[in-house]
């Protein structure tokens, strides 16, 4: 079928409405709690009956980013799981997507998502929605491949017809491997293999082995004299202060601040990704049970932070990297690879009271938040948002569909974004809209770093708009805004 014929056929559906889709289960506490676990959202208005009762909500509410998860049909709607005899979904988007898949556009990514919240959901609300197909684009040449954008709008109501919110959603259906591969700049050498096992190996000996053994246990050990309890770095067999040869270690908290840093561009060697940010980290002093000694610093590479985001003095927390085949005093160590510390920006603290709008400054920056994204984060997020699309949990099928790995689903990205902003503003900041444009996929092992700033504050009404971006090594993953209401 020619491309224009396909477009004409698909566009015949624009404006059509799907059937009313009704949730199988009402909004409920256990599902909210699972969502909060997956997102790591500690806001008590979602899970703590007592705190929620005292809040402006008067009781438990569901996180606003969950608006569109409750009436999802779940696993049985996935093609391979559909029971015999159950007809495929009849909504216009599903219809258009099947047509596109038949024409070879088997890849799918979400492009835009805009959630508008009319009121927060409460346990017991039984939701339904009706979908309208707003648009199907011409064939477009995108970075991912040749494809079509499909835009729908969904109106969410309770079964009693109370309007609770809307979702505008745009996806790209594309043909895998038809994208415009970025041409390497002239003179660029291929980047070296970044596998951590290729990093230069540390010389481990009797004087420093206890530290590396601790790293393997994810203990950030600091040498400590057993005579005078002084901590110091690097390790030495004799205490310069008291003369003792009895050496042990204290365990540092893993928190620290950045004392200095460099960004390595040249030369580039295997085991690292460039440009490489390397920090000199001043550790929070461990509890020594005695005098502390001077501040202890260690060198470690920084993850989840771009060179332009690094600042002397920034708070950091330890991360761990399984790195090298181990050798101790030159002999092979049979315990498997050693581990070395890395640091990422410290996770911002969740605010326990709620800021008032008049206390915010236009342009005020939110602290960096770096999320070390694992496959578990991605799968837990997909399931907690009742999204059973295989690309969010099945690596083999994700590969088949042209993706290098499973990737974060849009609802989880929105959940993180909402958490990031409400952790900053406080538990009773009321979200009225979440609008994002999606970019680079969020794959596991690429730390996802959130930045944000207050874009506007209306001190009369308390309406606040916060701009947020979450990026990884591939570029911006989501870029968008959270609209909220605060006490003026």
């Amino acid at each position, binding site marked *: 079928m020619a491309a224009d014929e396909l477009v004409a056929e698909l566009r015949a559906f624009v404006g059509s409405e799907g059937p009313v889709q009704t949730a199988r289960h009402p909004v409920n506490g256990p599902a909210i709690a699972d969502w909060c676990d997956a997102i790591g959202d500690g806001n008590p208005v979602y899970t703590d009956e007592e705190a929620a009762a005292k809040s402006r909500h008067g009781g438990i509410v569901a996180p606003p980013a969950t608006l569109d998860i409750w009436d999802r049909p779940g696993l049985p709607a996935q093609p391979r799981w559909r029971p015999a005899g159950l007809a495929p979904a009849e909504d216009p988007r599903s219809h258009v997507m099947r047509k596109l898949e038949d024409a070879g556009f088997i890849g799918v990514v979400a492009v835009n998502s805009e959630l508008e919240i009319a009121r927060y959901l409460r346990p017991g609300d039984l939701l339904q929605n009706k979908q309208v197909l707003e648009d199907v684009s011409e064939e477009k040449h995108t970075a991912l491949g040749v494809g079509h954008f499909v835009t729908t709008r969904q109106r969410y109501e309770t079964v009693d017809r109370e309007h609770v919110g809307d979702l505008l959603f745009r996806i790209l259906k594309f043909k895998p491997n038809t994208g415009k591969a970025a041409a390497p700049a002239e003179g660029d050498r291929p980047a070296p293999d970044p596998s951590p096992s290729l990093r230069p190996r540390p010389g481990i000996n009797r004087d420093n082995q206890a530290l590396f053994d601790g790293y393997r246990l994810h203990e950030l050990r600091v040498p400590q004299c057993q005579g005078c309890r002084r901590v110091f770095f690097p390790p030495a067999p004799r205490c310069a202060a008291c003369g003792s040869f009895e050496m042990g270690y204290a365990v540092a908290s893993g928190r620290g601040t950045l004392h200095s840093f460099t960004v390595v561009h040249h030369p580039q060697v295997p085991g690292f990704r460039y440009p490489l940010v390397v920090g000199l980290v001043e550790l929070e002093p461990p509890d020594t049970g005695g005098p502390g000694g001077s501040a202890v610093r260690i060198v*470690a590479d920084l993850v989840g932070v771009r060179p332009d985001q690094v600042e002397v003095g920034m708070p950091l927390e330890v991360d761990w990297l399984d790195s090298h085949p181990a050798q101790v005093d030159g002999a092979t160590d049979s315990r498997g690879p050693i581990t070395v510390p890395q640091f990422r920006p410290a996770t911002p603290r969740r605010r326990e009271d709620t800021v008032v709008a008049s206390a915010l400054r236009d342009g005020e920056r939110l602290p960096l938040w770096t999320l070390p994204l694992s496959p578990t984060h991605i799968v837990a997020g997909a399931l907690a948002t009742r999204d059973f699309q295989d690309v969010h949990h099945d690596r083999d099928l994700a590969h088949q569909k042209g993706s290098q790995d499973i990737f974060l689903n849009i609802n989880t990205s929105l959940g993180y974004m909402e958490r990031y902003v409400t952790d900053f503003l406080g538990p009773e900041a009321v979200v009225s809209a979440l609008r994002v444009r999606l970019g680079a996929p969020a794959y596991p092992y690429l730390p996802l770093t959130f930045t944000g700033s207050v874009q506007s504050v209306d001190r009369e009404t308390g309406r606040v708009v916060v701009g947020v971006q979450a990026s990884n090594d591939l570029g911006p993953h989501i870029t968008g805004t959270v609209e909220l209401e605060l006490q003026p």
Partner: protein
Amino acid sequence: MSRHTYARQAAIVGIGATEFSKNSGRSELQLALEACAAACADAGVEPSQVNGLSTFTMETNPENEIMRGLGISELTHFSRIHFGGGAPCATVQYAAMAVTTGVADYVLCYRAFNERSGRRFGTGVQDRPAGATAEEAQFAWTSPHGLLTPASWVAMFATRMMHEYGVSSEDFGRVAVADRKHAATNPAAHFYGQPITLEDHQASRWIVEPLHLLDCCQESDGGQAILVTTAERARDLVQPAVLIEAAAQGMADDQQMMRSFFRDSLVGLPEMGTCARQIWETSGLSPADVKTAVLYDHFTPFVLAQLEEFGFCQPGEAKDFIADGGIELGGRLPVNTHGGQLGEAYIHGMNGIAEGVRQVRGTSVNQVAGAEHVLVTGGTGVPTSALMLGVDR
């Protein structure tokens, strides 16, 4: 107050070098012998009269091969200094100690390598086997995290200088501009006739932020030798004696090899402070007596720190001291009039000693009037050394 007893009792009587290049086309041993022979010829001393040698532990040309090549029948002193580029001025100090104590009569200090066409220091330590001796294990705290090159080690200090003292990349660039200005008029310099502007510096690519390419010294092939004897013998030789007015080595305060990241402050060079104290005490001089200096410049930031450690300005004020051509010819203290290691060549600081000798003799291509006392320093960020050279009167 302590005074080194060999002060003004020993002198440099000859200097000799090969050409400085990117590809010498001959062995490192040949470069060393050419430089040594040239230093003897400069002094009017027969190579066979030399009975002492002093060099770096990093030197690949052993004393016995130098001895064979120069036709020396007997050596009574041979010493080596550790810690890379920190060694140059210490080779001269050891030579001075040897000749003034009667251990040797003529001592050649030498350094020669194919550091560009052979093993390049700029590639760093990533391919070194991870031995576990106390010395090798020091790399365990940096190499697994990607700090593998001298540039990356110095950059960590430079960021902190910028943070604490408000130094800018342009301030570092002013050091490079001064060096290249001086190299431009020195026919022996690799960058003869090639001055740069601050804009060139700023536009040069990053090596390790905050260091641009033009903050980093060259990689060079070449050799340099310095001949030392007693002041008394010196007065009978062809060149005017250049007295060793003071010489010093220094390590200080939680010293590491170019990675002293764990001491309280990262903005000074306490090991150079140790040298400075000895140099001023032994020579009886003060910064006001010094009209030109050769300050080790493998990377620009530490030139600023040296000006502060020697008291040419207060801590944190070097950026003002070097402003407006302060360390260029005609400025308040012309530094590295041969072009330094950024402009002339990187011969591990030994070529800087030769320039100090030329300034005292009055034969530099960029001669500073009244240069009666010339300060020369060794490598920075490492255990190091320094010299004060002066006229014999």
